[in-house]
């Protein structure tokens, strides 16, 4: 599905008319590339300008004088409300939240997928359908009871509370990923291992997990992107001090105190987007595989 390597459909140009078409094709592709790159370019150049230059210059002009003041302010001084500590504490909140939530939900998905795909018992498919269904609900429908539940559990407004919510509503997708990967492994493998005396856990640890590296990478990237970029849970289940970076970014941009510092807003936006962007650049292939698998089959 995510394999782009097959031979292209249409033959290369030979006639002069087709060379003109070729030029048209490249200019179109170039124009679209500009459209997609423009916001990133504008964010970056704006973040490197001083406020005077922003007011006097053009949106797309390169900075005359490059200054990193806005980045420093965004990272450690910008106000997210009454506190003015920049994005830094919230960035770490997001790290503290995303890492355990990704690991736990991925591990649970692996175990669930292994069971549903390889230890078929009566009702397993029904359970799988029930989990799959959970992937599609708009989270608004569980927002109120979840807020109350976290309160009852003593986790309201805490990072563990957010981790809990992300794990619960991530299980559906992670299970789906692993289940779809493990059904392609022949059932004879489990049978043979059982004959050799291996049990449920032994087969999982020594046979299935070592085979799973590609799907683990896909799942981790998918979950990390989802959780890092989440805003709805972050804004609903956190309080001042435990907010993830997306919520803090929104607060910085919409904070009404003082002069509007567009360069700081842009630096903050880039900082908030950097981790997932980095993951995308480094492991784009797996990112696309997750997107297509998560959407086409889910």
């Amino acid at each position, binding site marked *: 599905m995510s394999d782009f390597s097959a031979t292209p459909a249409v033959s290369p140009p030979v006639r002069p008319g087709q060379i003109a078409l070729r030029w048209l094709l490249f200019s179109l592709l170039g124009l679209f590339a500009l459209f997609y790159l423009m916001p990133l370019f504008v964010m970056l150049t704006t973040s490197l300008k001083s406020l005077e230059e922003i007011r006097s210059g053009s949106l797309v002009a390169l900075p005359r004088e490059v200054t990193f003041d806005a980045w420093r302010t965004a990272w450690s001084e910008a106000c997210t409300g009454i506190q003015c500590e920049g994005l830094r504490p919230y960035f770490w909140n997001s790290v503290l939240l995303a890492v355990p939530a990704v690991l736990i939900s991925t591990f649970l998905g692996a175990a669930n997928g292994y069971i549903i795909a390889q230890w078929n018992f009566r009702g397993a498919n029904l359970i799988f359908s029930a989990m*799959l269904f959970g992937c599609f609900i708009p989270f608004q429908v569980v927002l109120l009871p979840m807020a109350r539940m976290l309160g009852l559990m003593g986790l309201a407004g805490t990072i563990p509370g957010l981790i809990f919510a992300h794990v619960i509503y991530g299980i559906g997708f992670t299970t789906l990923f692993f289940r779809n990967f493990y059904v392609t492994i022949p059932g004879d493998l489990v049978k043979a291992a059982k004959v050799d005396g291996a049990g449920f856990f032994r087969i999982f640890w020594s046979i299935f997990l070592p085979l799973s590296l590609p799907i683990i990478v896909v799942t981790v990237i998918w979950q990390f992107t989802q959780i890092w970029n989440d805003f709805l849970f972050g804004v609903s289940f956190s309080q001042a001090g435990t907010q993830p970076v997306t919520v803090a970014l929104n607060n910085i941009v919409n904070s009404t105190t003082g002069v509007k510092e567009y360069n700081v807003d842009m630096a903050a936006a880039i900082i908030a987007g950097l981790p997932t962007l980095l993951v995308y650049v480094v492991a784009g292939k797996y990112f696309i595989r997750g997107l297509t698998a998560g959407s086409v089959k889910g």
Partner: protein
Amino acid sequence: MRAWLERQIPKMVLAPSFVAILIFVYGFIGWTAWISLTRSKLLPKYDLHGVIQYKRLFAAPRWDTAMDNLFLFGALFICISMALGLLLAILLDQRIRVEGVLRTIYLYPMALSMIVTGTAWKWIMNPGLGIEAMVRGWGFENFTFNWVIDPDMAIYAVVIAGVWQASGFVMALFLAGLRSVDGEIIKAAQIDGIPGWRIYSAIILPSMAPIFLSAFIVLAHLAIKSFDLVVALTGGGPGYATDLPATYMYAMAFSRGDIGQAASSAMVMMGVVFAIVVPYLYSELRAKHV
């Protein structure tokens, strides 16, 4: 006895996840459904009062705006993203040497949070300092582009940002689809002298029907859940001009203290999602079991 225990292990390992899903998905939907039938305000009350919340909801002008916006935004967002994604996929499918680079450029917005996207576009479309000021600086003194602060146009600003974010993803879906079409058929058509555009319109695109459906489902799902983008780009404003059901629900739940309204609007949202997703899921699951 030991053998029996051995057989129970898989069920025991799966059980916690299953119970969690039962409670936190199905139980919670039930709770929200119940609350949507009560007169709950700041705190939940459990005695039923029929469909009073739904009556209030459908009588509320703000909800009306939110639903209108959802259909307008959804229709434009889905159609433009699909058209643009398909166009990009076909253009990229013409033996482009730098295809990998272009693909990366078209798709990277999908890795960003909608809050980041909204923040960026809010700045770009800023009337005083963004595109409007830039074009005026070029000498077009009367140029106006103030969609983000114009109540009639703000929803289109949300469409622009949404399309920017999601169209690359549709491109990736379609490109994978184009590449999975049987090369032999295409070669045969080329030998027969059938022109390229006919090969696309008569052979390749019809065979991609399932991908059109997937793209539609994903985009519709994104549109209905759109919350972050509106919050970051317009904050639902000016006034309530760009409210969507998701922002309405959030406002009722967390700033108005009207959880009866919040619950009923969430139930309507779920109804809209299921009207689109359930037939699709059903056919998918059936197809797999056959």
